[in-house]
């Protein structure tokens, strides 16, 4: 039943099951993960609406969303793109270079964070003060209004 690519370089053909059960199961898993992500997104929205948003809690929820996204990526690549059915050599030649992203993310985000520190400490010449614009007018803006 399975169509065979007539090419001498291909040693064997992965078994393609006749049923679409696995595809639909993956669809439901992806939908469920997306719904959980949306719920977490709305939770973050409601935390932000409060008086004093708990930064640690928000960070924890954002971390959870990142982990759920990695799970979705795994299911798409492994099941929908059939990488999970390929031989180990193909899996490794695709996945191993992507490990560079680990360095990439850590290096660049910490670089951004270092910039923020330089900004808020005036390149280390004053103590760290985050210029936060609260829900009240800075003095300068109010003076500008009166003129």
């Amino acid at each position: 039943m399975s169509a065979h690519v007539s090419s001498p370089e291909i040693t064997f053909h992965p078994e393609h099951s006749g049923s679409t059960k696995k595809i639909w199961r993956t669809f439901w898993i992806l939908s469920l993960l997306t719904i959980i992500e949306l719920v977490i997104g709305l939770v973050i929205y409601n935390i932000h609406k409060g008086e004093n948003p708990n930064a640690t809690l928000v960070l924890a929820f954002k971390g959870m969303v990142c982990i759920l996204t990695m799970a979705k990526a795994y299911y798409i690549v492994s099941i929908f793109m059939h990488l999970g059915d390929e031989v180990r050599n193909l899996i490794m030649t695709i996945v191993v270079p992507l490990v560079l992203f680990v360095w990439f993310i850590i290096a660049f985000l910490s670089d951004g964070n270092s910039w923020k520190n330089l900004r808020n400490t005036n390149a280390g010449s004053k103590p760290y003060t985050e210029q936060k614009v609260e829900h009240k007018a800075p003095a300068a803006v109010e003076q500008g209004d009166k003129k």
Partner: protein
Amino acid sequence: MSTTTMPAGTKWWSGGRSPFNASYGKVMMWYFLMSDAFTFGAFLISYGTIRFSVNNWADPNHVFNAFPFAGHANLPLAFVSLMTFILIASSVTMVLAVHEGHNMNRKGVEKYMILTIIGGIAFLSCQAWEWTHLITGDHAVLVNGQVEHWGTTVAKNPWGPEVLHNGQAIATPGPIAFGGYFFGITGFHGFHVFSGVVINIIMYIKTKMGHFDQRGHYEMIEKAGLYWHFVDLVWVFVFLCFYLI
């Protein structure tokens, strides 16, 4: 991994066979997608770097809270979840088309390719609406003590922190990078969706003309499918970086 049919002790690297057990075209499609992943990754990480380096950033729940025909109702995440589900659904129809291709069922491939193309066009329409809404939207911004009305563009970001002005809360200009990153990255992704739709239409026509039946296999559908799923994969990360966190 289905290793059931793998001949034991195969010498993968001694020549005469593909060490990846895949045709040249399929391996190259994988390498292209891997390089594209690095392009998207570089864009998203650059966005993350800028976001880490500033004290304030636009809150996605305020920027993306509109829905077509819903007026000014505050519906955070609603429209973008619709877009996400459209893309997941079109991914499923694509993988079903690949599945029908394995079974050499031309009618099935045609049916699912049509559904995938419709999903892609629906996603692009949603994105067109979202961009129009953002660019033409009118938001009061306090600029040097004067109230101005700004849309969200690559040059203007009306989503900065709020201050009190004449007793009312009003936004100040936010980091200018917001529009550039948002339109740049979602635009690059949208361009991928567009080219994916074009590729899928070509594949549909080739299926309809019986090219793959003559060839004896539907591997082209598989390769187009890899590209289409990659577009969905990128959206998962764009969705995370721009709308959720």
